[in-house]
């Protein structure tokens, strides 16, 4: 329940917090990346950086997290907190935030991060900006939370002037994780939070892990060959894999191809999937909805293959082929193989160092 009192004097709030998301005794990479940005903001504000880690048996993880640049970690240890659940985690965060009054709290914009932040900001009645890509501090010391709007066509500067803490979420790979220093000094503080079994109002009954495709993943690849609904059938993705293999790249997909059950969710690019920034992004049979652009428009070079010359993705293409992908892709494979056969060196991604 929310308490309807007016916002508390913001001068009582100090420190930057990062919510530490974990899974199977490992820190999620978005959390390590947030520690880096949190460190920068804490230094700018002349304050400390705290990680918050609700969990069970997570002391080693807490010490590990310090190595990325934290001053301390608050651990709340309870069997109820072993895996993420909305209400208990929100209870813990709400109680800790009321107790310590941090000025800024950062979350990963993951499914669980949004699930938690969305619930929490309503309980605490404070601002939460989703999917930020950049932060600044304005002249009055407010956090300038910068997020894309309308599918990246503009960037909005969000301020939360009267309410504290100022809260924001950030997607994976927006920031780079700082180098890990295992010798970094820092404090692990255990705190008690009142939790009762009644706080557990939903139970995780089953979990089926997505199959990890072997080989090169789109996020690591220099070249990404991505297929959309125009691929028509899952078996046609084999052709994209051939092309990707020839180029030393990885295969990805639009959400519509994923939702059609053709390819695993793990390789979805876009607003609700991953962000990729390869040297070359080849979009095959993808129309170019704003939610797709959100995950690939920062690629160095974009190639679009589509039957429809009016497909919006052509607007941001470096090169495009208007044509039937079932003719164009096999032709690309043929010509690349021919190049290879004629003795020209193997067409492949130019190593980053040579660029």
């Amino acid at each position, binding site marked *: 329940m929310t308490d*309807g009192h007016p916002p508390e004097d913001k001068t009582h709030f100090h420190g930057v917090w990062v919510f530490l998301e974990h899974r199977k005794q490992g820190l999620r990479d978005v959390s390590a990346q947030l520690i880096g940005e949190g460190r920068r903001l804490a230094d700018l504000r002349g304050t400390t950086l705290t990680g918050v880690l609700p969990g069970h048996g997570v002391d080693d993880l807490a010490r590990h997290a310090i190595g990325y640049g934290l001053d301390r970690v608050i651990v709340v240890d309870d069997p109820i907190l072993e895996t993420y659940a909305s209400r208990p985690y929100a209870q813990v965060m709400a109680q800790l935030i009321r107790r310590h009054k941090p000025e800024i709290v950062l979350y990963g914009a993951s499914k669980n991060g949004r699930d938690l932040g969305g619930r929490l*900001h309503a309980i605490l009645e404070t601002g939460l900006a989703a999917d930020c890509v950049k932060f600044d501090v304005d002249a009055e010391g407010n956090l300038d939370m910068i997020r894309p709007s309308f599918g990246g*066509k503009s960037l909005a500067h969000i301020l939360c002037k009267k*309410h504290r803490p100022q809260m924001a979420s950030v997607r994976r790979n927006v920031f780079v994780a700082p180098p890990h220093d295992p010798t970094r000094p820092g404090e692990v503080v255990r705190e008690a939070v009142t939790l009762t079994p009644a706080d557990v109002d939903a139970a995780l009954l089953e979990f089926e892990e*997505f199959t990890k495709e072997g080989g090169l993943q789109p996020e690591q690849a220099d070249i990404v060959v991505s297929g959309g609904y125009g691929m028509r059938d899952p078996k046609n993705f084999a052709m994209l894999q051939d092309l990707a293999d020839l180029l030393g790249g990885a295969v990805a997909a639009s959400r519509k191809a994923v*939702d059609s059950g053709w390819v695993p969710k793990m390789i979805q690019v876009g607003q*609700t999937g991953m962000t990729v920034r390869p040297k070359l992004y080849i979009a095959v049979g993808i129309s170019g909805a704003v939610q797709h652009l959100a995950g690939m428009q920062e690629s160095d070079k974009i190639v679009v293959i589509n039957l429809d010359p009016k497909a919006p993705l052509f607007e941001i*293409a470096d090169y*495009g082929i208007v044509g039937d992908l079932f003719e164009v892709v096999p032709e690309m494979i043929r010509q690349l193989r021919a190049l290879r056969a004629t003795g020209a060196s193997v067409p492949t*991604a130019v190593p980053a160092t040579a660029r």
Partner: protein
Amino acid sequence: MTDGGTAGRPRRIVVCIKQVPRAQELQVDPVTQTLKRVGVPSEINPPDANALEMALQLKDRLGTEIVVLSMGPTSFDESLERAVAMGADRSVLLTDRILGGSDTVPTAYALSETIQKIGGYDLLLCGEETTDASTGHVGPGIAGHLDLPQITYVSEIRIVDGKVRARRTAEDGTEWWGTTMPCLCTVNFGCNRPREPTLTGKIRVKRGGLVTHWSCADVGIDPKKVGLFNSPTIVAKVDTVRLPSRSGQIFSGEPGASVRKLLASLVADRVIAA
């Protein structure tokens, strides 16, 4: 999909829908550098249409009452009427000038208050996120206000022994959650195919009386907790993104020639080696 029979079915489902401009049609005005919103056709926020379809399928299987709820200007009637024509029993529009400029905190608060006035709900459904604000914070915010169990990013719901079983899509796998009613779920975009309005549905809309308008006073919403000035966040300014200029060479015609030109360009750009 199997439910455990109609015993313990949800008696009333409230589906929260927002009307949004069609994302594909939003363009930045080259002169003013702002988004052109006038004249852009609207639609039900796509994931909300999936949430409504999920409710309609539960109604088909188990029988229940569906109330569609939206907060916004009276132009949102268009979407509420469409929802009724698709098969919702009735709809409520919370509409009041003092709500203008509300961010997700007052929106979640005002929707929660309205849901309580509607009352008698067992299941609340929202979309995973809107295409215009794209935060996904309003659904969990409502659950927080009403202190209800929440399950987000749901693609399937079964009712077993009066309890909810929901399939949730996480980053790394599929989860099945179990919880009691009343509860709130947010529904994944694309998890089903929203039906078209039916002729009988359209006739029900024509007869009128199925879209109710409430003001903040009707619901008992505290005016000091809503609107632009009571929203914690403000948009201080908006920069237009200048995406890197792209060469934009489009080849058409015979595929063999197009591919030759493409590969030659990529080699010349040193993106691929030759």
